[in-house]
């Protein structure tokens, strides 16, 4: 569809840790976009397609109080949950950088994202028609939080289901944009992010008007 189909291959010479691409000293402002979805839906693939560094992995841990059950040992009352997540980045200009986070959207991880994604510009919920139910919780939670989001159907080139079918299966609010993408393609991944930013703009305009 696009004449400039560049391969999303990492630039030669980029070390695996991406440390060869330092940010400019003048960088002041970092923005966040979250890409949420079930395992294997292509979150990291989408991040990799547009990131200027090879995606990095790190972990967030959180210790939560137990379920209020008296505990004789006194040490079992807290549970530590660890979730790994991937991220990449896009330098916007001399002062700003955009970080893209790929995060598993299941309910049990969400308490971590509440903290990680505070102040995010918005979110992309990436769905796969084989496991649409993996995205139900993320969609409910984003709606409840009022975080602007769009849904992207990562079809890996398979167009078996129409977007109307996907929208209906997700019971998606008509106001939430739904787009089709191939997360492996840089141009396609880029259009998903552009669609999200347009959606955020329109929400702001609507609110302001």
């Amino acid at each position, binding site marked *: 569809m696009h004449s400039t189909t560049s391969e999303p291959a990492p630039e030669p010479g980029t070390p695996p840790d991406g440390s060869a691409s330092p*940010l400019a000293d003048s960088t002041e402002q970092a923005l966040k976009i979250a890409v949420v979805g079930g395992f294997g839906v292509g979150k990291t693939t989408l991040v990799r397609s547009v990131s200027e560094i090879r995606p990095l992995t790190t972990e967030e841990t959180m210790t939560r109080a137990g379920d209020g059950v008296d505990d004789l040992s006194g040490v079992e009352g807290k549970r530590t949950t660890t979730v790994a997540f991937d991220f990449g980045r896009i330098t916007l200009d001399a002062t700003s950088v955009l970080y893209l986070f790929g995060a598993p959207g299941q309910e049990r991880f969400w308490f971590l994202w509440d903290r990680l994604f505070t102040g995010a510009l918005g979110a992309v919920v990436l769905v796969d028609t084989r496991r649409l139910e993996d995205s139900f919780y993320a969609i409910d939670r984003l709606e409840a939080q009022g975080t602007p989001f769009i849904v992207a159907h990562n079809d890996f080139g398979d167009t078996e289901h129409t977007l109307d079918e996907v929208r209906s299966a997700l019971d998606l609010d008509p106001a939430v944009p739904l787009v089709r993408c191939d997360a492996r393609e840089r141009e396609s991944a880029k259009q998903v992010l552009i669609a999200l930013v347009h959606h955020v703009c329109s929400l702001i305009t609507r609110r302001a008007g």
Partner: protein
Amino acid sequence: MSSHRGESPDRLYVITSGRSSGADDSLDAVTLIVAECLPTQGMQSEHAEILRLCVSPMAVVEVAAHLRLPVTVVRILLTDLIDTGRVTARHPAPAPSPAHPLASPDVLEKVLVALHNL
């Protein structure tokens, strides 16, 4: 990729001198950290590594990924360095959103231009 997965909690305990809290809560995942001095001899190795990494601004999550330590642990290490003036933190301004539409109206335009130019 991250070697700390499944790593002995003892090492994390030593790195943070046994602290599990006390981290600066204002440290966002994308707060940019900038070194204000060079590593010195005798400095804890993780602190020294952070100073080397942050010669150019680097987000908290990126520091964590390079150190192969959980973000929670890195927040504690960074708080040590901030408290002693060895690094400074550039906190993210709130992104424009329907709730805060006037935060910085040109930011979205900037993001769109950069995405189109990818």
